[in-house]
Every structure is written in structure tokens, then in C-alpha cells.
């Protein structure tokens, strides 16, 4: 047909529809298996609906059938990037429930390894966040230091990621002199490495364009959405559980809480970069002040496992050993407890209901990633599709923890 014979288009009857785009579940920038249903008007996101649950394993339900000690490896698999802090949060909650006091040396060791874990987590975050936005070099640089920390974990407890190192009432084994020395060396040069990462991207024009003024959330909105961690502090709210409700050895070390003012992706990035330096400070202080003493409490023989020497020489210990393993802690108090700790992602809470048996009647995990994903529509809607990537990166989620 000749083009001149075609009927003229009536502009009034033309319809335009929003495009529905499925992002994920296997999108490399969703940091796991999360699906975002984006409704697009051109390049602008009109509506964003996150779908989670692809990594659901039923950790909370599994824990109801396990003794407190036996459920500990499950918490490794929540946030597999920083399993140390999740172990610590779990152990701290159970200790609060059972009324167990941890020796001072164990507190310092736990604080030290948790901050190492926080550094490893933040390094992985800056690596992948920069990679998502388009700066590939940072990825390779950050993994060098992360590898060092994972190697230290391997030397400490025999595993790199799923450590299972903190225990109810202390830690698994004592730190060696080589470990202390090499970590102390690491704290000497690590701040200069953070400067290096910042030299790569901090004042970079492209980085500015991709992060400044993107994903803005005000302090009030951030509090209303329940954001915690660096995502909240980037909006200018001074809230850090390590300062406000100190646990382990955080009340005897000195550190600053970095906050931002704008509440955009860039300020959240700045907060985390400063947290790397502050974590480094904490590790340094922990090593300098590490006291001598026991690493496992001796006051709670009905909760902790006795040493193997004792098991074979003392009848009481033998009975406790068998009872703690098969039935869980003996004479558990009834009641409920909620304990929050500061994980790298935000506030990690463990809630237990105990009915007096050796296993929890109910365990509930308040996972920061889950709450942060709920705020994702707020951050994305009205922005561009390309900014969805930087928003996902900036709230620092891990789906193992979100779906549980």
C-alpha cells in the first residue's frame, strides 16, 4: 500500500501504557534472589513492588526444634557475609535469656572479630555497589583486604565465611599470638587502603552524578520506615546500638558514629566508608586492651559444654555434657527476651520465647535487610530505572537474612 493512502492517525485515540518490567530474581545487581516488579513510564519508575522469599529456608521454625547451641550454625546462614555478628547477636540474646555472664577476655575477642566481620561486610558492599554503578576497579581492590580478613578467620576458627565462632557464654577457642600480631599489622595499614578506595571514586564526577541526590529519604521518613544502620545514619539520625545500648566490650572502646545530612545514596556511602575507619579503631583498641583470663564462662556449667578433660574425669561434667547436648541448657528460665545488636546492615534483633525447655518455643529474627527492602519503593519511585540499582546497593541488603 502506498503510504499516502494510509489513514491518518487520530491522536486522541492513541493510548500509552506503563511498561511492566521484571527485575530479577536472578539479576546480578539484586544481590541475591529478589524480584522487583517495576512499572515504568518511559525511563521513570512509577511503581516498584519488591517480591521476596526465594531464599526461604524456615530458619525460625527450624530453630524451634533445636537446642540453643544446636541452632547456632543456622544464624551463620542468615547473613553469610558477616556471620560473626549474627552469631554474636544470637549468643548475646541467649545469654540474656539464660542470665549468663561472659568473661571479659571473651567480650573483647568477640568485639574484635565482629568489627573485622563488619569490615569484611562493608568491603564486599563497596565492591559490589561500585561494580553495579560502573566502577569496576574498586571491586578488585576491596577484595584484597577482604581476603586477608577471611584468611584470619580461617586461621582463627577453621572456616572462612560460616564461622560459628562465638558461643553461648564465650568464644569457641582462644586467639593465637600470630592472629593478634597480623591483625594489628592490618590495622596499621588499613586506613590508607580506605583512602585508596576513596581516591578511586569519592570525588569522581560520574560517581557524583550516579549517587548525589538519588534515593533521598528524610530522617523522619527513615525512622517511620524502620531503617537502621548506615541507611538511617545517612539521613542524619544519630542511632547506633553499639553506643546507645552497649553490649560486649563496646562500652570500653572509643569510636565515633558517622552520620550524613542529605539522606541520599552518596551520604550512605560516606557513612559506611567512615565506619570502616571506626571499626579499624575499635579493633586496635581491643587488641591493645585485651585482658588475660578465661574465654568461656565457668559459672554456668548447665549451659556451656565442659572441657573434654573434665568430661572424662568428672562425673558431674559428664552428665552436664550429655544433658546440654541432647536436651539443651538445664533449668531454662521461662519468659521472653528481645535483644538487638548492631550488625553491618543495621539493627539485628533476636526475640525468644522460652517455655522452660532447652529449646526456644519461638525464635524471631528482626532482620535489617527485610525492613530495608520495604523502604525500597519509597526510594525508587519517581526516579530513573538506572537509579534502582544504586538504591538497592545503598541500603545494603542480603537476601539470606531477609528471607530467612
Amino acid at each position, binding site marked *: 500500500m502506498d503510504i499516502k493512502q494510509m489513514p491518518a492517525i487520530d491522536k486522541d485515540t492513541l493510548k500509552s501504557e506503563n511498561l511492566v518490567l521484571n527485575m530479577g530474581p536472578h539479576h546480578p545487581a539484586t544481590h541475591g534472589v529478589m524480584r522487583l516488579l517495576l512499572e515504568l513510564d518511559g525511563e521513570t519508575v512509577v511503581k516498584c513492588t519488591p517480591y521476596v522469599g526465594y531464599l526461604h529456608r524456615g530458619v525460625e521454625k527450624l530453630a524451634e526444634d533445636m537446642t540453643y547451641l544446636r541452632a547456632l550454625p543456622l544464624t551463620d546462614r542468615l547473613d553469610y557475609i558477616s556471620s560473626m555478628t549474627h552469631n554474636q547477636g544470637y549468643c548475646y540474646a541467649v545469654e540474656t535469656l539464660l542470665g549468663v555472664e561472659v568473661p571479659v577476655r571473651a567480650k573483647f575477642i568477640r568485639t574484635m572479630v565482629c568489627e573485622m566481620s563488619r569490615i569484611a561486610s562493608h568491603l564486599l558492599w563497596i565492591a559490589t555497589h561500585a561494580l553495579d554503578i560502573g566502577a569496576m576497579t574498586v571491586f578488585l581492590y576491596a577484595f584484597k583486604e577482604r581476603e586477608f580478613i577471611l584468611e584470619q578467620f580461617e586461621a582463627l576458627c*577453621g572456616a572462612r565465611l560460616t564461622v*560459628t565462632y562465638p558461643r553461648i557464654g564465650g568464644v569457641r577457642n582462644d586467639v593465637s599470638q600470630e592472629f593478634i600480631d597480623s591483625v594489628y599489622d592490618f590495622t596499621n595499614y588499613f586506613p590508607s587502603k580506605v583512602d585508596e578506595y576513596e581516591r578511586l571514586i569519592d570525588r569522581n564526577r560520574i560517581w557524583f552524578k550516579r549517587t548525589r541526590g538519588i534515593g533521598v529519604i528524610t530522617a523522619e521518613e527513615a525512622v517511620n520506615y524502620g531503617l537502621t544502620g548506615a541507611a538511617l545514619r545517612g539521613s542524619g539520625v544519630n542511632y547506633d546500638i553499639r553506643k546507645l545500648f552497649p553490649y560486649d566490650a563496646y562500652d570500653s572502646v572509643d569510636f565515633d558514629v*558517622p552520620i550524613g545530612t*542529605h539522606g541520599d545514596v*552518596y551520604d550512605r556511602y560516606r557513612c559506611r566508608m567512615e565506619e570502616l575507619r571506626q571499626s579499624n579503631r575499635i579493633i586496635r583498641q581491643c587488641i591493645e586492651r585485651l585482658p588475660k583470663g578465661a574465654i568461656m564462662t565457668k559459672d554456668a556449667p548447665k549451659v556451656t559444654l565442659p*572441657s573434654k*578433660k573434665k568430661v572424662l*574425669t568428672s562425673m558431674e561434667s559428664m552428665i552436664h555434657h550429655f544433658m546440654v547436648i541432647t536436651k539443651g541448657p538445664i533449668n531454662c528460665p521461662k519468659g521472653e527476651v528481645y535483644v538487638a545488636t548492631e550488625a553491618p546492615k543495621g539493627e539485628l534483633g533476636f526475640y525468644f520465647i522460652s517455655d522452660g525447655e532447652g529449646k526456644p518455643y519461638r525464635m524471631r529474627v528482626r532482620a535489617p535487610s527485610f525492613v530495608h527492602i520495604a523502604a525500597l519503593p519509597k526510594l525508587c519511585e519517581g526516579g530513573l530505572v538506572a537509579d534502582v540499582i544504586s538504591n538497592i546497593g545503598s541500603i545494603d541488603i542480603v537476601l539470606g537474612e531477609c528471607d530467612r
Partner: protein
Amino acid sequence: MKKHLISHEPKVVSLPDEKFSFKNLLKDIFLTEIISGLGLTLSSLFKKPVTKQYPHEKKEAKQGFRGLHALARRPDTGLAKCVGCGLCAAICPSKCITIYTYEDVNHDKIVDRYELDILRCVFCSFCVEACPYGAIVMTRHYEYASYSKEALFMTKEKLLKNWDDYMSDEDALVYFKKYWGPREEDFVGHEGQAVFRNNK
């Protein structure tokens, strides 16, 4: 409360808003930050590489690594140390250990089968800590990937063979004593508690 907790002053890290200036304009035109960053990457061209070419260049696992399992042999008889108490199976979070025992004519408990599904194991080393005899250990061996499930389903014989392969030399015994054997700790008897007499 300690002193620094009372003065809980946050540290503001966000950058001030950019104002127009001649210096900023020059930065915009010549992209000095990007060049500075590129200079950093260029300088690492002359440093030693940190990557390891894995299959050709193997890395030995650190002392105390939680690798493949093994059942310990008694040094005197050469039989398995395991007495079949079932504590390892009781503490295992993934329920991958199954033990079958029977009673022989002398009324001794004999471990008939000791099965461990490596594919379900989460390598928490709780079984090693729970075992009162130090009968199950974890070796430093970690390269045992296989195409068949059967190869990764450990029976008692296979686990004993693991001990012969990876834990029977002198270094491994030292390693075993240090990491999986009894923890060295001064024994402190509580009041009214039974203590073994020979232990001084």
C-alpha cells in the same frame, strides 16, 4: 556510664554542597579526580599480583581448618575410637550423622555402621566438640568434589580410610592434639563435685 558515652557526638561525614568557583570549573573540565584515580590503578601495574592461579597453584588450608571428616583410630588396637554414644548425631544441626549399634555376646556395645552424608554437612565442627573421646575429627583436606553422590556418602570404612590418608603422619597427630583433642585447661574441682583420683 563511661565518659565518652555521655558525650555522644556524631561525626558528620557528608560533603558540603558545591558552590560555583573557577577552581571547580577547571576540575570539571580537566576531570582531575578521574585522572588521580587512574594514576592509582596505573601504579598497581608495577606491583606484584596477589591472585593465585588456583588449580596450578594450591593453597594449603590453615591449621585447624574444618575440612573432610575422619574417624580416629585407637593407637593400640587400630580400631575406631568411636563407642557409639550418639552425641555427634544429637548435636548435628543438619542431622547428617547416623549411627547403628548392636550388643554382642559379651554385652559390649559395637558400632555397626557410622554414616555421614557430606552433602548435608554444614561443617560447624559441633560433632568434634561434642565427642567425648575425640573419635571424630575434621582433616585439612578440602578437595574432594565428585560427580557421584555415593562418593560423598561416608561410611565407617571410608571415614577410617580418611584418617589413614590425612591424619596418620606425625604432623597430623600434633595437629589433632592441638585442635581436636582435649582442650588444655587447668582442672578446678567445684565443692562437692566428684573428681577423678588420678588427676592431680
